[in-house]
C-alpha cells in the first residue's frame, strides 16, 4: 500500500533569518548570512578559512530546565524548529503522543561544543577534571541527541530515525520520513536536521582544501556556486524541520497543506569517500524521478547542492545536464548562508517551499561569471517570478551518499 504524503508545516533557523518573512526577504534581497569566523583559542589561528554562515541573532528559547538539561546548542536549534512546526500544524497532544507520529532528525555529530568539553576533561590528566564530565554530556553530544530531545519535549512515542550522513543527514531524514508515512508505518513524521556553530568542522574541511579562503575580508562574497571565482565551501549553522502527514489524515483534519512529497532517492557512488561522482549523482536523480513517477521535463526548479567546491559544482552541473538538459531553473541556496551541514537538506526544502508558495526563484548569490564547465544548465542569476509546480532538492555527502527529494505544489 502506497499512501500520499504531504507537508503541513515548515520552519528554519538560518544565517539569513528565522521567521518566514525574514528568510523570504533575505532571498529576495540577496542578503548573505556569511560572517567572519569567531575567535577560537584552540583552532582559529590555524584555520585558513575565516568565514562562517552565522546565526548571529537572539532566539527566545523558552524551554523548561527538565528539557534544557539534556540539550547542547544543536538540540536547542532542533527543538526550536520542531516546536514551531508542531505549533503550526495544530496537531493535538493525543495524536502527538499516540505512537502514530515519529521523528526523523539528525546532526553530523551531536554537539561538538559539548564534545570538546569532554575531551578537555579527558586530556587534563586530573582526576578532578575527569570527574567533571557531566552526567548529561553524553546525552548532549550523542549522534541522535536532536531526535530524542524532540521526542522527550513533546512526548512523541513513535519510531525514531536519526541519520547522520554529513551533508545528506536531513535530506535523508525527510526521505526516510516520507517512506515511513508512504508505506503506512506512521501517520506523520517530524523530519529535519540541525548543526551548531563549530570551528572544528571548518578545520576538517580546511585541511581537505575544501573551504573558501579567498574572501576572508569580504565574507558576503563567498561561497560562489558555479562561479569562476568559487574557491570552496563555507561552513554554516542552522536547523530546518518539516511535518509530513499522510494525505487523507491531513485532509480530514483540515490541515494547511503546503506541498506534496512525491519522490525520494538515496544511493551511493560505491567508491571514493570524497570525490563527487557524476555517474552516482545522475543515478540518484534518475531513481528519484522514477520514484516520483514524473518525466524530467516536468521539473521546474532544481535546488542544487552547489557547495561551491571546484569539482563538486562541475559534477553536479554535468549530472543535471545529463538528466534534465537546460529546462529546469537551477539555484544554489548555500550561496546565501554557507553549508549548514546536517541542516542543509531541510533548510533548502523549507526555502524551496517558501519560493513555491510565493511564486519566485531566488538566484544563486555571487554568481557573477558562470564557469564554462557549469554553463550547460539554466542558472538563475536574477530574482525570477516563477510558478514552481515541481521542485527537487539535491544533496550529496562525504562517503559518496547522494539524495534527491521531489515536491509538488499542492493544488
Amino acid at each position, binding site marked *: 500500500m502506497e499512501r500520499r504524503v504531504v507537508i503541513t508545516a515548515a520552519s528554519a533557523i538560518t544565517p539569513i533569518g528565522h521567521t518566514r518573512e525574514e528568510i523570504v526577504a533575505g532571498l529576495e534581497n540577496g542578503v548573505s548570512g556569511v560572517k567572519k569566523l569567531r575567535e577560537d583559542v584552540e583552532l582559529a589561528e590555524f584555520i585558513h578559512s575565516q568565514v562562517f554562515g552565522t546565526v548571529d541573532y537572539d532566539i527566545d528559547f523558552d524551554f*523548561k*530546565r*527538565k528539557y534544557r*538539561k*539534556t540539550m547542547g546548542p544543536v538540540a536547542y536549534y532542533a527543538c526550536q524548529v520542531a516546536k514551531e512546526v508542531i505549533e503550526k500544524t495544530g496537531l493535538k497532544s493525543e495524536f502527538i503522543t499516540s505512537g502514530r507520529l515519529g521523528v526523523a532528525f539528525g546532526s553530523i555529530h551531536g554537539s561538538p561544543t559539548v564534545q570538546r568539553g569532554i575531551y578537555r576533561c579527558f586530556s587534563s590528566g586530573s*582526576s*578532578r577534571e575527569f*570527574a*567533571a564530565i*557531566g*552526567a*548529561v554530556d553524553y*546525552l548532549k553530544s550523542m549522534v541522535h541527541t536532536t531526535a530524542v530531545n524532540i521526542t522527550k519535549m513533546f512526548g512523541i512515542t513513535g519510531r525514531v530515525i536519526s541519520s547522520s550522513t554529513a551533508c545528506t543527514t536531513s535530506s535523508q531524514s525527510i526521505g526516510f520520513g516520507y517512506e515511513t508515512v508512504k508505506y503506512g508505518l506512521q501517520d506523520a513524521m517530524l523530519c529535519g536536521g540541525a548543526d551548531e556553530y563549530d570551528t572544528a568542522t571548518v578545520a576538517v574541511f580546511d585541511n581537505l582544501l575544501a573551504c573558501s579562503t579567498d574572501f576572508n575580508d569580504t565574507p558576503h562574497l563567498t561561497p560562489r556556486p558555479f562561479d569562476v571565482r568559487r574557491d570552496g565551501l563555507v561552513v554554516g549553522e542552522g536547523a530546518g524541520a518539516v511535518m509530513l502527514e499522510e494525505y487523507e489524515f491531513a485532509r480530514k483534519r483540515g490541515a494547511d497543506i503546503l506541498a506534496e512529497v512525491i519522490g525520494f532517492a538515496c544511493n551511493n557512488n560505491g567508491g571514493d569517500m570524497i570525490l563527487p561522482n557524476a555517474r552516482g549523482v545522475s543515478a540518484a536523480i534518475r531513481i528519484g524521478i522514477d520514484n516520483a513517477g514524473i518525466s524530467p521535463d516536468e521539473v521546474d526548479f532544481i535546488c542544487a547542492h552547489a557547495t561551491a567546491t571546484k569539482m563538486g559544482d562541475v559534477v553536479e552541473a554535468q549530472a543535471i545536464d545529463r538528466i534534465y538538459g537546460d529546462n529546469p531553473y537551477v539555484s544554489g541556496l548555500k550561496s546565501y548562508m554557507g553549508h549548514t551541514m546536517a541542516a542543509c537538506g531541510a533548510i533548502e526544502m523549507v526555502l524551496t517551499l517558501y519560493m513555491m508558495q510565493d511564486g519566485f526563484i531566488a538566484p544563486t548569490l555571487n554568481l557573477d561569471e558562470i564557469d564554462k564547465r557549469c554553463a550547460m544548465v539554466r542558472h538563475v542569476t536574477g530574482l525570477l517570478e516563477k510558478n514552481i509546480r515541481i521542485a527537487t532538492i539535491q544533496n550529496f555527502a562525504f562517503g559518496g551518499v547522494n539524495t534527491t527529494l521531489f515536491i509538488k505544489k499542492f493544488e
Partner: protein
Amino acid sequence: MTRQEIQDKILKIFSEEFEIENPDLDDDLRDVHEFDSIDAIELLGEIEKLLDSQLTQDEKKQAMGIRTINQICDYVESMASVHLNPA
C-alpha cells in the same frame, strides 16, 4: 557545617541548579518535582563541590536510594563527617 547550613546550601542548589523552589523537606522529589536519575548524578557533583572533595563510587551508589531533601541532608552530613573531619 551545621545541619541548618547544609539544608540551606542544598535548598540553594535546588533553586539555582534545578529550578525547584522551596520543596517540602519530605517531598518525594521524583514524584513531586520530576527530579530524575540525571539530576541525582548532577546533584552528587554539586555535593562534591560543597565538600570540596571527591566522593568514591561506593559513596555515590549509597545516594541512589535517596528521595527527599531531608535524606539528602542526612547523606551530606554523613559524607561531611568522612570528608571534612577524617579520623
